[in-house]
């Protein structure tokens, strides 16, 4: 039988502790080689990538994004191409929208250095810049010219890149997706002879895509009645009663069409209620919310459980005659027979508007809907900034944009519109890319609120309650506006 030797135990315990401490310590980063490549290579020079990445060969960079068609293309296609060209491995985590934000913000706030690049949605860039989470890409490339690719040119991006610039014009995120939330409608249903005849008989006008809310409501009512028993409803509604998706559909896509911009928050005195100079509970806003909540009567039953994913699925399953759908889904809904039942029957149009809204949008004082999108940026806490700079330039090359756009119906460079693949897909998506190119200027991104997420969480519960019928839309907006007026001063905005 073994007997414990106490001296051995006294020696083993400290050794055990020491080994655990050493195991917990991170591995030291590999020191880059002293030599750097010479000047940047001409566009499309594969050897340049290999040369520039030589000091970082074998490094693994990690990123996180939402699981969407554009991001999945990056994970499935571009990451492998980059690794082949440079020897740098890309571990790209695509997850839910909620988790993507959670993970990225926690990592950057705590500076834990887990991620080398993070997805920056257009609406959160202001918060990230205010908290100085991100590396200045423009300055970094100036400081390290040996890492600057000739095929990466900031001027080739559409104006969407401006959302990711600071006041000095320096870029903090390389755009990787941009699209508008567009009005989709079923061309086959709108073109059905029986539907057309019945609609004309009932409403005295032709069945065409709506240009006003009243028309949209009539079409929704009509198709809900006409589609009874056929699993067809008049409209989608992104009305999840426990997820911010419903907040976003209302404030980003519906309220602006009634002339309520920037969530109804006055950006001079940071007030939301009408009594204090805001418009969150104005007559226009209440009309907008009453209209949108009213559409639930014409929406399929899953509407109150629908985020943007379910709305895309609902439309692709042929369950709605029309709806507001994020553009990143437009391509696969219109063209992929493996995922969509409405291939070839998808029409695209501008959203219905109240009178005067189009004039405000054209004048630049308003907008008609949401210009969504995102970029990849480098947290200050990244342990592989140089390797990641190469990666961001790789995905920012003009040469990769067209295939990426075809896969994810996103366009971040002007030249992409002229690519034959996109021209072909444009015809299959009823001119979605033409609309994006020519009318995109009428849409706008989220307002420049560093407090975006915090105030969203203040307002959203009232929207949920309005959808669930616990309170009226008017009450919801009155209470939301009062809550925002109470919260913003706590965050340092207004008094």
């Amino acid at each position, binding site marked *: 039988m073994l007997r414990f030797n106490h001296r051995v135990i006294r020696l083993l315990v400290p050794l055990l502790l020491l080994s655990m401490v050493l195991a917990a310590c991170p591995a030291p980063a590999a020191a880059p080689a002293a030599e750097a490549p010479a000047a940047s290579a001409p566009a499309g020079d594969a050897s340049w990538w290999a040369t520039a990445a030589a000091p970082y060969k074998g490094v693994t960079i990690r990123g996180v994004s939402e699981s969407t068609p554009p991001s999945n293309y990056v994970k499935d296609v571009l990451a492998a191409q980059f690794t082949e060209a440079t020897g740098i491995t890309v571990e790209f985590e695509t997850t839910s929208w909620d988790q993507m934000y959670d993970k990225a913000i926690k990592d950057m706030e705590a500076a834990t250095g887990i991620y080398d690049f993070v997805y920056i949605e257009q609406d959160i860039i202001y*918060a990230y810049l205010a908290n100085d989470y991100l590396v200045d890409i423009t300055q970094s490339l100036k400081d390290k010219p040996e890492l600057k690719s000739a095929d990466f040119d900031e001027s080739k991006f559409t104006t969407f890149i401006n959302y990711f610039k600071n006041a000095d014009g320096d870029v903090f995120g390389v755009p990787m997706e941009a699209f508008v939330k567009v009005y989709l409608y079923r061309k086959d249903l709108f073109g059905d002879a029986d539907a057309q005849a019945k609609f004309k008989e009932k409403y005295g006008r032709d069945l065409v895509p709506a240009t006003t809310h009243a028309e949209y409501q009539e079409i929704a009512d009509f198709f809900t009645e006409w589609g009874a028993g056929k699993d067809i409803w008049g409209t989608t509604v992104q009305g999840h009663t426990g997820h911010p998706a419903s907040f976003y559909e209302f404030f980003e896509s519906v309220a602006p069409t009634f002339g309520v911009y920037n969530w109804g928050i006055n950006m001079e005195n940071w007030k939301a209620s009408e009594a204090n100079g805001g418009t969150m509970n104005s007559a226009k806003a209440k009309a907008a919310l009453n209209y949108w909540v009213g559409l639930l009567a014409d929406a399929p039953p899953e509407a109150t459980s629908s985020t943007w994913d379910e709305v895309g699925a609902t439309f692709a399953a042929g369950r709605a005659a029309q709806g507001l759908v994020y553009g990143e889904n437009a391509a696969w809904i219109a063209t992929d027979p493996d995922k969509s039942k409405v291939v070839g029957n998808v029409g695209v149009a501008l959203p219905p508007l109240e009178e005067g809204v189009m004039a405000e949008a054209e004048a630049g004082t308003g907008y008609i809907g949401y210009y969504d999108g995102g970029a990849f940026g480098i947290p200050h806490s990244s342990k592989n900034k140089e390797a990641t700079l190469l990666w961001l330039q790789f995905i920012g090359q003009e040469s990769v944009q067209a295939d990426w756009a075809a896969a994810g119906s996103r366009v971040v460079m002007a030249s992409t519109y002229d690519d034959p693949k996109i021209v072909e897909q444009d015809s299959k998506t009823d001119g979605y890319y033409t609309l994006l190119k020519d009318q995109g200027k009428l849409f706008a991104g989220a307002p420049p609120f560093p407090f975006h997420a915090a105030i969203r969480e203040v307002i959203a519960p009232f929207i949920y309650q309005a959808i669930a019928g616990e309170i009226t839309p008017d009450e919801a907006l009155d209470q939301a506006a009062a809550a925002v007026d109470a919260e913003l001063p706590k965050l*340092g905005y207004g008094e």
Partner: protein
Amino acid sequence: MRSNRMGWGLLTPTLLILGITGLLPFFYVIYVGFHDWNIFATTGMTFSWANNYRRLVFDNDFLLSLWNTAKFTVWAVGSELVLGFVLAQTLTRDFWGKTFFRTIHSLPLMVAPIAVGAVWRLLNIPGFGPVPYFLDKWFGFEYLIGKYAGQAFATTVLMDIWHWTPFVTLTMLAGLTTLPKEPMEQAVVDGANRWQIFRHLTLPMMMPVILTTLFIRIMDALRIVDEVYMLTGGGPGAATRYIGLHIYRIVFPKTDYGYGSAMSLLTLYLTTVLCWLLFVGLAQNSKQKDGAA
């Protein structure tokens, strides 16, 4: 003495890890709870005395989430105890397929909570899930967890029952199989019926196991987040926004670390008080049993 020193020496690594990963964060949460701190505020982290705790007392959303959690706990845990006990009693008898049933019955315990929520969401999402489809087709019943608060609440309770009843069954079964047989046999000889045996013998003897199981299930039910987050997101409105999910929303999406920390601590305090009361009940029951013996 040597044995004590050696014991402490062997425990030291574990205590160190627990201290770093458990106590340090706990003290940090206490510290943060006395500050106003939202990472996207311009004001930074500012000491605010007990202002956060004062706010909590008047926070209707917080109080509502506590009430909803209490309702959920009563319904879910109460149902699991009854169902688990009945199933455990059944499993003490021999019947065809008993082993197979016991295995199948225990499978939900192996599923991660987030996966349970995801599966139940797929089953119950209106328009896509089979449950609302067949309820409508066979019974004409409109089942919309995104719209009707009562249905959403009931579904979260059912989900919890499905997930955790096997745990209750197995613990009750372990208790039942260790009960002495002699008192039951004597009671039968004395002419007691099954209800009398259950009421006066089985139940009192099982009380420590029941209270322990209750103790564990209440602590779990008060902390539920993952499954409900996946299934309803806390909706419709705030109908299923239980305290765990409410704290999650305040701390992470809203990034209000100060208020969320205070909320977490107050919830921990309430949970501790509740569990202490149960523990006192357990100890009391144990004393009475010893006294009677």
